[in-house]
């Protein structure tokens, strides 16, 4: 079998000879591994910034009537927190993993378009800088990460912050679309022989579907950003009532991007969980086909649920019923995944590494976020609770308890491959428990705050003792969470310096990225092993019980 031919592309000039540790080699790199690592490093930096913004908000809200931040400063900070975490952390963090891992997992030597890959990353980084430059250019955006018109229009936001917001998101959005396209072409054309679509690692499956979702979701955002800019700079009125525009139109445009975006922020995380739980349970994934196909179902449905962000708009019952129904339906394929992951552990021999602990915690915390999501889809619940702290709790259970927990699981799992060194399990244990406790302390109580009537995005609240106590608990939890991130950073630093050597395959995993050295050489593989099932390395190690014999596909 000629495994070697298809996986390789001619490398761009200079890449072969580049010294890996030289700064210039990073700045000029078109190697998917270096770009992937740069994605992860940049998003870690933005994660720290967004986290500090979250702590500032929690300090201001720790007790009724505090004056740590002025109302306008608070509004800038919460806008920047949301924008940063969504556009500069969660999406690009997952793209970083996808960029680093996808070529390795399909036995390729790089992405299909290495230079485009670099462009995607640099657009992200400089888009981020552009966004933050607004602080020095007359004030950060302060109309929320969703920039609802007409609040985001010139008469109500005369500062340039919203213009920076729109321009930065345009730059980042173009980069994200390029990355999605690149991943699609890579996964479709550069798979090693034998790696059919039905043997694709589930992470790659979900990256592939996710990339299609990017192509569907991001262009509407870019178009509406341009319209908003035209409104603001050229006095058009797409989204103002004067002259026949409509603020509701902005909401339709924004959420037709915004809800697929939620799945763009979660599908690759599902992919990580689908790799990690099997390896540490020592079992193949339970129901590969169901897990893969349910992803496609989620992606498909996610394009038709956007108006569930608009149940309080008063669009009428037909809208509410249609979008309530489509939103509830997403619970079905998502539930399939949760049950399949749980069933994968069933009958296994579970190894409780830090990575696995995060993955197990993900199962519970993500389920909580998913269930409150179903409650919101039953829209009379939404009619009470939308835009309260109940939503803040819900979305953090999805994005932190879901995606971020999965990303931590992924970091502990793939760090050895990327660096050649193991992360410390001792520090990992501390990191995990602080994160788990801090996260639940911060966000569980916010469900109650929402039920008690506290709206979100308020810079302060009336002097009710019970609200004060609940907010104080939430703030304490947030600081615990902050400490847990410090422990994580220490772990990264210490382990990079002196962590134990990883070897090629420290977890006895089964997918192709573990068939090369850690870190992999520039061309990724000396030789790509034959692929006859979804678990090629299992087949190599257990020729008698090989998957292609027991479960041919």
């Amino acid at each position, binding site marked *: 079998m000629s495994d070697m031919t298809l996986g390789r592309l001619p490398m761009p000039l200079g890449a072969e000879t580049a010294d890996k540790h030289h700064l210039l080699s990073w700045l000029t790199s078109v190697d998917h591994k270096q770009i992937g690592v740069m994605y992860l490093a940049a998003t870690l930096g933005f994660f720290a910034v967004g986290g500090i913004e979250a702590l500032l908000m929690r300090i201001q809200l720790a007790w009724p009537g505090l004056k740590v931040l002025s109302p306008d400063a608070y509004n800038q900070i919460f806008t920047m927190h949301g924008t940063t975490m969504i556009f500069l952390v969660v999406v690009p963090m997952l793209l970083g993993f996808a960029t680093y891992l996808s070529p390795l997992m399909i036995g390729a030597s790089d992405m299909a378009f290495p230079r485009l890959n670099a462009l995607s990353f640099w657009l992200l980084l400089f888009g981020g800088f552009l966004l933050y430059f607004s602080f020095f250019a007359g004030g950060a955006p302060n109309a929320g990460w969703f920039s609802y018109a*007409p609040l985001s229009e010139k008469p*109500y936001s005369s500062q340039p912050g919203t213009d920076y917001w729109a321009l930065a998101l345009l730059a980042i959005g173009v980069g994200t679309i390029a990355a999605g396209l690149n991943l699609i072409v890579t996964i479709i054309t550069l798979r090693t022989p034998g790696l059919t679509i039905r043997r694709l690692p589930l992470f790659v499956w979900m990256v592939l579907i996710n990339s299609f979702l990017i192509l569907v979701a991001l262009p509407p955002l870019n178009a509406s950003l341009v319209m908003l800019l035209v409104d603001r700079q050229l006095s058009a009125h797409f989204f103002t009532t004067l002259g026949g525009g409509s603020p509701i139109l902005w909401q339709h445009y924004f959420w037709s991007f915004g809800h697929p975006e939620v799945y763009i922020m979660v599908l690759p995380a599902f992919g990580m969980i689908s790799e990690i739980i099997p390896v540490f349970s020592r079992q193949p994934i339970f*129901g590969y086909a169901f897990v893969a196909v349910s992803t496609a179902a989620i992606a498909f449905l996610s394009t038709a649920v956007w108006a569930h962000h608009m149940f309080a708009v008063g669009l009428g019952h037909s809208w509410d019923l249609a979008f309530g129904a489509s939103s509830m339906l997403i619970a079905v394929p998502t*539930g399939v995944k949760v049950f399949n992951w749980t069933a994968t552990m069933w009958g296994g*021999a579970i190894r409780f590494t830090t990575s696995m602990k995060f993955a*197990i915690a993900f199962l519970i915390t993500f389920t909580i976020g998913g269930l409150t999501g179903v409650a919101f889809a039953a829209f009379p619940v939404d009619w009470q609770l939308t835009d309260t702290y109940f939503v803040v709790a819900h979305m953090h259970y999805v994005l932190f308890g879901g995606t971020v927990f999965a990303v931590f699981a992924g970091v502990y799992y793939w760090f050895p491959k990327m660096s050649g060194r193991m992360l410390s399990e001792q520090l990992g244990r501390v990191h995990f428990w602080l994160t788990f406790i801090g996260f639940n302390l911060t966000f569980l109580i916010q469900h109650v705050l929402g039920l008690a009537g506290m709206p979100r995005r308020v*810079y302060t609240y009336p002097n009710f003792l019970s609200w004060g106590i609940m907010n104080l608990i939430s703030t304490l939890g947030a600081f615990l969470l902050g400490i847990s991130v410090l422990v994580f950073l220490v772990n990264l630093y210490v382990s990079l310096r002196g962590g134990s050597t990883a070897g090629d395959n420290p977890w006895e995993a089964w997918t192709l990225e573990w068939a090369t050295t850690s870190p992999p050489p520039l061309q990724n593989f000396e030789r790509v092993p034959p692929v006859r099932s979804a678990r090629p390395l299992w087949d190599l190690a257990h020729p008698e019980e090989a998957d292609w014999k027991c479960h041919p596909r």
Partner: protein
Amino acid sequence: MLAIQIASFDPHSSQAVRLVQFSIFIYTICAAVLLLVTGLVSYAVIRFRGRPGQPDPTPGYGRVKLEIAWTLGPFILVIVIFVFTFRTAQAVDPPAPASPDLVIVAHQWWWEVRYPRAGFTTANEIHIPIGKDLAFRIESADVIHDFWVPQLARKMDAIPGHPSNIWIEANRIGTYLGACSEFCGAEHGWMRFRVIVDSQVDYDAWEKQQARLAADPSPGLPAEGFRLFHEETCVRCHTVDGTEAKGDVGPDLTHVASRQRIAAELLANTPENMTRWMTDPQAIKPGCHMPNMQFTGDQVKAVVAYLEELR
């Protein structure tokens, strides 16, 4: 008030009662599913803990029948939830009437409250009689806001150019707090209001009093305040029925002294607080549209004396 009051679970209108019943039904289902998943995960974690040196188990690849079961199970559950969703929505949110009983117009960062039948306007404090099913029309004068009184009704966005309607039939006398629930700019946090449910007798008396024109100011300090009010541009933004003040940027002040709070719930309506407010509104509610009028201490006293007579 140490006990946590969960407003969303303490309904006092026929609409809110239906909402709470439905919500509790949904939360119960969610809790049951969470319990099931947590139970399954916990059992797997405890029962299938790997021992050091244990060989990998013989691979299992999934069981299609089980998977079909846990696809169909949630699907059926979703259909059940959908049916109840439909019925609750019909009951809580029937179609709007041709002419509403009250019109609420949201402004940055206060609430205009119009009573079209009785023909008067007030702000931030909504009186309604008990036991009457009233139609509220929700409008906005500037950006998007949201009208929400958790104990009485669903929330409804106030969107410029897109009026909406809700119904409230209150079933207990009392005061119910509300808040703007859509981010609307600098003072979103202090865009609060209250709904006061009165007995029919009390309500009728209140309505009669609110429908009166403002009385002429007494001689002395109040009369001086009246003069300042008209000369120092207050009238550009505020209305006092029966005078030349016809502005609608700020709250209607015809009977401002009869209200319990000022600045959309921020302060109790006392002469001391009104003095603080008139002296420097930006220090109390930064970013609000009421400018600092640069009054001297004596001028503030006069204006407050005038406002205190507007009962």
